[in-house]
């Protein structure tokens, strides 16, 4: 009986090890609690929230600086950027005077830093060096996510309430053209070959694919209600798309432009991150105030970790390539 018990225990341990992703010693998962202005510091090994640090008002999105040394948190209602240690989440510095930063992004050539002001219908273009404002553009309603052309000439921004996305010439800081979309476009994603833009249509149940050079809708693919946000699988070919209202995540092949599979993740999946070994998908599940971890082999939820109110952006250092 004892031997049987030990065998079962060993089996369970092996099963758990199979699902476990590799994180560096001391590495933390950093989660933005947009509804309470804090950052949750989560131990990915012990699977618990270690602490919660006040960071500013309405932190929604975060991204690592191009040199990988700092993590930028955009505090929409504090009008500032807060820089964290990307490994531990410790606050390093604060840059004030950034108007209502919601989504943020660097152009691939690192010259421009673009911030979408979701609440105030503005897109701000800063010289990335020193965050000096180059231009503030009045746009259509509710600018949301941002993508760039590979040559850093264009920034694309979805306008959720205007049902379109716009192309901004970064050198002249002018809106060149706009493209009508389905209802409430949110996530916008450039394929690695720089040919297509994928747009998550949150007010409907599909993904729209645009040939942006020809300014033409190529395809609509059904994914799930509330198609919202993207993250690369890290293999240079596939991208995940969260369907917020369907409570699912779809895997999209960027070469064939097909959905390969869709799996269930309850609680309103939003922003996602993939572990460096490609074994786990971590996502903020906003409506249940939890971080949800999915095993990408079995497509099952491994565990959920309670964090703060309305968790949105997340980050960890041992992540899969972001393209």
């Amino acid at each position, binding site marked *: 009986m004892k031997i049987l018990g030990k065998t079962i225990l060993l089996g369970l341990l092996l099963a758990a090890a199979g699902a476990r992703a590799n994180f560096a010693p001391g590495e933390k998962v950093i989660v933005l609690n947009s509804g309470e202005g*804090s950052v949750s510091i989560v131990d990915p090994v012990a699977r618990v929230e270690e602490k919660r640090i006040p960071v500013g008002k309405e932190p929604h999105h975060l991204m690592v600086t191009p040199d990988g040394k700092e993590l930028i948190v955009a505090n929409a209602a504090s009008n500032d950027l807060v820089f964290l240690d990307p490994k531990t989440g410790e606050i390093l510095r604060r840059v004030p005077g950034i108007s209502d930063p919601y989504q943020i992004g660097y152009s691939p050539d690192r010259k421009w830093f673009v911030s979408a002001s979701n609440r105030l219908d503005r897109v701000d273009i800063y010289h990335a060096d020193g965050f000096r404002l180059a231009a503030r553009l009045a746009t259509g309603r509710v600018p949301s996510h941002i993508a760039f052309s590979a040559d850093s000439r264009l920034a694309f921004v979805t306008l959720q309430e205007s049902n379109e996305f716009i192309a901004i010439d970064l050198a002249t800081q002018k809106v060149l053209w706009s493209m009508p979309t389905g209802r409430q476009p949110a996530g916008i994603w450039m394929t690695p070959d720089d040919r297509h833009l994928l747009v998550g249509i949150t007010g409907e149940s599909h993904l729209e694919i645009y040939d942006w050079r020809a300014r033409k809708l190529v395809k609509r693919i059904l994914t799930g209600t*509330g198609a919202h946000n993207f993250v690369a699988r890290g293999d240079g070919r596939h991208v995940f798309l969260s369907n917020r209202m369907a409570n699912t995540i779809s895997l999209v092949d960027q070469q064939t432009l097909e959905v390969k599979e869709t799996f269930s993740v309850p609680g309103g999946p939003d922003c996602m991150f993939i572990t460096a070994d490609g074994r786990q998908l971590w996502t903020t599940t906003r409506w249940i105030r939890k971080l949800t971890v999915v095993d990408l082999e079995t497509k099952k939820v491994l565990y959920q970790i309670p964090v703060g109110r*309305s968790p949105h952006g997340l980050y960890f250092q041992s992540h899969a390539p972001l393209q």
Partner: protein
Amino acid sequence: MDALTLLAAKATALWAGTQDFLFESVVQPLVFRLGLTAWLEPAFDATEVFMVGALEVAVLAVVLGLLERWRPVEVWADRRAVRVDVLYTLLVRLGVLPLAIFFLLLPLVDGFNGWLRLHGLIPPTLEDAFPALFAHPLASFLAYLVLVDFVQYWLHRAQHRFEFWWALHALHHSQREMTFWTDDRNHLLDMVLVDLALALTAVLVGVAPGQFVAIVALTRAVESLAHVNARVSFGRLGEWLVVSPRFHRVHHAIGLGHEGRTRGHNFAVLFPVWDHLFGTANTVRDFPATGIRDQLHGRDYGEGFWRQQWLGLKRLAGRA
């Protein structure tokens, strides 16, 4: 994990679970059908506002209801006049009217804020002035609470001082059977004006939406208590710290509350210190009858909701 932490975690999980259930099963499908998915997050927050309101009304109804039975200032055989105040309370605290006003004012307030940004102006927040507040959310919350209360004091003075505003605000004072339900008895236009002023304040001093909801919830609880039909005062020190039922009843008193040079006394919403500072405090130890002097001469302010709203508009136009 100690027992208290465990209990707090369980309570949070229960609350979050309820909010998720209400949102995902009722609110989210509705928002989607209405084509308003860009408003998912505000709708999620509104779900919690509804929950806070429902809980608050339930708790206040029990606690303050008992208080009114225990030490009533006045006892009425017929409580029909109170019924309309219950309706106002439910419409406001469950979020119906605030939601309508939110959608009415949002384009205006965000438009103003966006216009400021286009002209290179980012309104400074309290944290910009006092960076230590960044790391101390509770201190920050208290600072905003005091600031918003200060603004509310002056708004309240304006409601009594300007004839056009008093024409509307008089509805609130026309309740002669004042109970804890009376707090939300207000003219819709009066609500819009006050909310607009508060929303602009929030823009200009940087109150975060989440903080704003907490400030409003706390303020409302104290306001309900302040209107209670019960002989309650907070003692010599307490009367200086927080607005008590006694202090606020004087504000509603016939012949005391809204007359004279400052058009009344005891305007404070949370902290009576403003009345003491600006010379409008009246510390009479009494529980006078409530209402407006001209009611004694037969002026009608209406009994039902629509009649009250209509008469408010007529007073505003100088025709009632």
